[in-house]
């Protein structure tokens, strides 16, 4: 379907960091984690990267890791497990 991404960032200004956070949560990033994991289509990924590129400043760093199917199967949770899926009915 899509790709699973892990996004980390090192951004000094609160304002810029918040903007990047807003962009990431719009693509399904799980909240309250210090590292973001999301599943997007190729098109969504391109859009998202472009949006982030527009808001960050020269000294900021955002790094995106793509997880392959084999890596996803090898994820280990310690403590509370991460939410795997979201019900679309409220």
């Amino acid at each position: 379907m899509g790709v699973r991404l892990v996004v980390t960032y090192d951004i000094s200004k609160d304002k810029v960091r918040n903007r990047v956070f807003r962009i990431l949560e719009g693509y399904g990033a799980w909240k309250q984690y210090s590292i973001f994991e999301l599943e997007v289509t190729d098109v969504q990924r391109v859009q998202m990267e472009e949006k982030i590129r527009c808001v960050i400043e020269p000294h900021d760093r955002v790094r995106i890791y793509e997880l392959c199917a084999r890596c996803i199967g090898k994820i280990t949770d310690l403590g509370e497990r991460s939410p795997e899926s979201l019900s679309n009915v409220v």
Partner: protein
Amino acid sequence: MPESDRAIEGAEAFRVVRASEGMFDDDVIYVSAQKSRVRAEGGRITVTPWGEKEVLASFPMEKVRTINVFGSVSVSSSVLTKCQENGMAVNYFTYYGRYEGSFVPVHNTIAGVRRHQYGCTGNRALRIARAMIGGKIRNSRTLLSRKHVPPSARLKELEQSAGGAKNMGALRSVEGEAAGIYFASLNECLIEGWTFEKRTRRPPEDHINALLSLTYSMVLNEVISALRQYNLDPFLGVMHTDRHGRPALALDLLEEFRPIFCDAFALRLVNQRVLTHDDFKEDNHLKDASFKKYLSQYDSYMKEEFRHPHFKYQVSRRRAIIMQAILLRKAITGEMKVYHPLVFMR
């Protein structure tokens, strides 16, 4: 039953969805929690109860394409602004799922689906229609055998000829012959004191026909609503021709449900003596109190779950109709090569 009680009774109708269905409709969300508010906050669409802060659910804005709201749910203007930006559509339904209207942004993704739908003619339409009619005939046979009435061998032949029909005219005549045979046998499924001479319409001549007509229009409404939820135009059909005011696509999709949901429900009401001849007025319509009884029976019937013959998990009949709308949409847009009707083999 006052309107408000009925609303509460219908409350569970759209609640049930399993995580396993995620593959279907990641980009469509349903809000049926009453007295709730849908808002845009940051990159998320959130649902909160009126006047409260606690968030019931939140969805990633960039992934949502359609928001379906049922009953008293308010959608904030912040969401509508985001809809404009992202091409999201909001469809409004009553608590019962009757379609009321939509908010369709200037830039929208509905056009893509509609373009496929309007272009779905000729062989593509025929392929879908064949599958629907084949499914309907199969379901007719299944219903008869469930009622221990051996279905005529001709029905089986007709089911096969539906699959190979050369054109829409041939398919329609197969459908007509099958319906004739099926309705002739349906009389044997009724308990004593009820007869079913032939299928009549406008106006239905007897109680059983009146009951069938009522049930068809109830289920038709659900089908229309399901098609709307997936941004299909219910008025442009693949088999039924579009005449003014006739929901042709909904009538197409209704076909496979007629025997197995509609007729089965009417038979149950009669055979289990939920309704008797005394429940009908002179003009063959149900008396007011009986109609309310009918509605509540209908609602629980649609909520009843069964094991989906194709997906192998429990779904309600109502949910199954929505799933067929999704499959139909996939067949229309070409995302899936063929349409898979909901077929019960036994």
